[in-house]
């Protein structure tokens, strides 16, 4: 297999990459893109794919298509050996989940669905305070692509899960696509209730039974349900979307939902390097956040938080003030509102002026921040499990169900998606991620070079060597290391904050100090490392405790070492003129924009 073509059919754009084996090594060589065409008047996803291929042909000089047929296998400069694809076109997979107890099985079900790359439209639980007819109405009106029904540990409650099945049956839900098809329902609950569930749902829905996602209180078993969701997504949902049947017939491996493919890559990074990773993929319609802490992988899909179709929802969710606080110049609120709406109604456009770029990057910070907040609230330990606590924990009142995201234990933050991958300067991507995620202590930051993580995720299922080689050589761009104050470190602007000594790999020594409220960048190349010793002021914590020193090996990147003494959370000046001045100082420090 020497020539591979891969596409990601996003909600806005279809991206294609060409991977070629040269001198025994796989490299990503060319890239093309085109608007996704699931919409009228084309209503055929393959039109956009062909268009992206045509652009690749133009740029690479390789003949890929014979009319509308992919030429295979590759011979010389003609044809490709395999075509693979991911997709989030068609709005992705929209699911409802149901479980017996809201904070237990329903939440496990939600995690199973999110983990499979679904948008969870609503969570129905026996104890969710809604009246039965309200639950039934909700199911009927939302028209999900699929329902995941869970509930009860094996040998536990039957009544509650049967009750939920009765509600689903009464709603008699119809799928969003294809009027004649039955709605897929996955039952992944108490195995003792299976027969009853069959009686109730078998005739009205396309019922699939899989292993319980919560067989015992202490154990979650999400994999079989996730697998079933992805299978049914391909068989039932995607197959109904315009043009997918044709697209499926072209590909050499099953089409994977985009978040599923990116999740695979994130897990691979964490496993291979034995590190904790947070990843984000900011798209046009959704923003997907991934975290791998030790063995625990979590993925959330923030439906309706994105940079094109959903851009207006970022405004609705976070409010105008939160967006305006990141805009480094003075602008009218009404002007900002109109610009956001114009992007919503014409989602494929890109910023042409520097001012427009700065506005989009301000909105992106909020989309990322809100998505990460949502992720933190869902990336929690198992609920309902009794946990032994020592006396100090008991005093801290820590409960199970607390987020497992600990920014101090984070090793690597990875960004992907148009606004990050295509930021004209890499320093812009780094600053957006620092502002939105507000890392604490010492954290490496990387970005997907040209947005190809989904492609490589699906490719890894058919040719791991190609996926790994391209990922390491062409995809992951290390931006550098961020050194930040820990949450709660608040001081006065200009106050003495930290001093540090950096010993570069060539022995060069840098000794400096940085007051509170500033950003500084120290160049350190992509393959370079350095040793840093930081002394923090008595009111400031850099990871070892207030006033305590820290020494660590740090890694470079295309931006370098970013030292951030802006405090956590980052606090911006209240008056407009000072805030604009602050932002301009920070963007200048990191060389984000041309003068």
């Amino acid at each position: 297999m020497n020539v591979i073509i891969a596409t990601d059919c996003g909600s806005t754009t279809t991206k294609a990459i060409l991977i070629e084996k040269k001198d025994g090594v796989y490299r990503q060589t060319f890239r093309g893109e085109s608007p996704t065409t699931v919409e009228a008047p084309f209503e055929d996803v393959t039109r956009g794919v062909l268009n992206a291929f045509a652009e690749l042909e133009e740029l690479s000089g390789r003949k890929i298509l014979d009319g509308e047929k992919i030429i295979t296998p590759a011979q010389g400069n003609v044809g490709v050996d395999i075509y693979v694809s991911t997709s989030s076109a068609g709005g992705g997979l929209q699911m409802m989940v149901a479980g017996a107890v809201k904070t237990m099985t329903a939440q496990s079900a939600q995690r199973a669905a999110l983990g499979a790359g679904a948008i969870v439209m609503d969570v129905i639980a026996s104890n969710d305070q809604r009246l039965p007819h309200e639950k039934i109405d909700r199911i009927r009106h939302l028209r999900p692509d699929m329902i995941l029904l869970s509930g009860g540990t094996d040998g536990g409650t039957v009544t509650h899960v049967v009750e939920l099945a009765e509600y689903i049956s009464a709603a008699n839900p119809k799928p969003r696509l294809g009027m004649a098809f039955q709605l897929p329902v996955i039952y992944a609950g108490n195995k003792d209730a299976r027969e009853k569930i069959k009686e109730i749902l078998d005739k009205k829905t396309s019922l699939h039974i899989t292993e319980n996602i919560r067989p015992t209180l202490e154990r979650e078993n999400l994999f079989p349900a996730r697998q079933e969701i992805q299978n049914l997504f391909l068989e039932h949902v995607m197959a109904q979307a315009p043009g997918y049947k044709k697209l499926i017939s072209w590909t050499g491996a099953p089409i994977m939902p985009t978040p599923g493919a990116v999740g695979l890559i994130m897990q691979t990074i964490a496993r291979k390097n034995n590190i904790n990773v947070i990843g984000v993929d900011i798209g046009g319609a959704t923003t997907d956040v991934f975290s791998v802490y030790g063995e625990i992988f979590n993925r959330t899909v923030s439906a309706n938080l994105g940079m094109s179709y959903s851009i207006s929802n970022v405004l609705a969710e976070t409010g105008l003030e939160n967006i305006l606080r990141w805009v480094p110049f003075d602008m009218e609120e009404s002007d900002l509102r109109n610009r956001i709406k114009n992007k919503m109604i014409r989602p494929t456009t890109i910023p042409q002026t520097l001012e427009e770029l700065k506005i989009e990057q301000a909105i992106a910070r909020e989309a990322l921040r809100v998505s990460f907040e949502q992720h933190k609230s869902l990336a929690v330990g198992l609920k309902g499990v009794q946990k032994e606590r020592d006396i100090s924990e008991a005093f801290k009142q820590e409960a199970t169900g607390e987020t497992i995201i600990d920014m101090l234990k984070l090793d690597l933050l990875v960004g992907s998606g148009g606004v990050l991958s295509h930021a004209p300067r890499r320093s812009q991507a780094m600053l957006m991620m620092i502002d939105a995620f507000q890392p604490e202590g010492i954290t490496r930051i990387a970005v997907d070079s040209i947005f190809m993580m989904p492609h490589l995720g699906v490719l890894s299922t058919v040719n791991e060597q190609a996926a790994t080689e391209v990922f390491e050589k062409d995809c992951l761009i290390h931006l550098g290391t961020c050194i930040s104050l820990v949450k709660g470190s608040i001081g006065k602007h200009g106050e003495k904050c930290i001093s540090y000594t950096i010993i570069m790999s060539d022995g060069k020594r840098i000794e400096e100090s940085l007051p509170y409220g500033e950003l500084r960048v120290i160049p350190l190349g992509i393959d370079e490392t350095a040793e840093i010793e930081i002394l923090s002021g008595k009111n400031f914590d850099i990871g070892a405790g207030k006033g305590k020193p820290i020494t660590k090996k740090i890694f470079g990147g295309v931006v370098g070492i970013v030292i951030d003494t802006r405090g956590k959370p980052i606090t911006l000046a209240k008056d407009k003129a000072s805030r604009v001045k602050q932002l301009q100082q920070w963007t200048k420090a990191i060389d984000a924009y041309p003068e």
Partner: protein
Amino acid sequence: MTHAYTPGLRIAEKTTVTSHRALPLLGDVVVKKGDLLKAEDIVAKTYLPGKVHAINAVNRLGIQPKDLREYMLKKEGDSVQKDEPIAETKPWVKMLKSVLHSPIAGTIETISTVTGQILLREPPKPIQVYAHIDGMVIEVIEKEGVVMETIATFIQGIFGVGGETVGELAIAVDRPGDILTAEHIQSGHKGKIIVGGSFIQHDTIDKAKKVGVKGIIVGGFNDEDLRKLLGYDLGVAITGSEDIGITLIITEGFGKIQMAQRTFELLKSRSGAKTSINGATQIRAGVVRPEVIVPYEKRDKTVNEGTDKPIDRGMEIGDPVRIIRVPYFGKISKIKALPFSPQKIETEATVRILEVEFPDGTTAIVPRTNVEMIER
């Protein structure tokens, strides 16, 4: 050459318009193929299943779920009246009898011996689908609906709110660059669909609603006013079901933007004609744009299909385009050059671009993705 799948809007002076009129659930189609219909005619009807009410019968009767059927006076499928007994206990002492009355008129949907619940369903709600446009039934989809066809002037807007409505078309301003103000709205506009120019404000819409205007077609509108009109910040562009008492369609975008000359002229040429509009917009997979359909009374077949729509060919030098992003937002121009190689723009991004020439002879460089193709 790559194809120009630009998200262009369709504008046609005289074209065949087909419209799918479908029920949300299966039902009965009441017209037949070939019928000539008015917009107000019903084409299909059905019944929406009624609301479901759940009663925890076992708690109310003090019995075990498995025994529920023994105490039922009605069985699944039976119809019941409000307050009619549906289940009762059978104690030795009659005074101790517990009776369960139906809280609604409807039918018994489910009697569950696992949960001990009785699900009752209210009577079905009738729903009807109208033809919406004057035209002919060209296809009947059994139990689902019909496909209507008409010869009409057809204009797609970029965004709208409010549902389907029908009225006489009236032009309220002189030029496409004029702002539609409250003074332009006359009592004679009652029941009509009026066409403004470049902009409308919320107070003007209020006046139009008071007068009884059914719909407004205008170039631009402020998002601040949209929030006032809807009562909330619109997050995702899925509209059409708002109950705002009027349908608003914008043809160009948000802000003050002159309506495209051709759009304005076309609407003006059809002034006085019966017009069907729909503000429903869904900017997501399966995009739906708001529509203005002005059928011709005579169904002559000399259709001049408009070309202001996405076309399946590459962009070519000389093609007219509309620029859809700042700094040239809303301007109409002509493609002057289509350089092959990507170029650096002001943001420092390297993108595929085109060179455009404006009517005054000036030129500009624009990213290819920031234009939409329009008619020659």
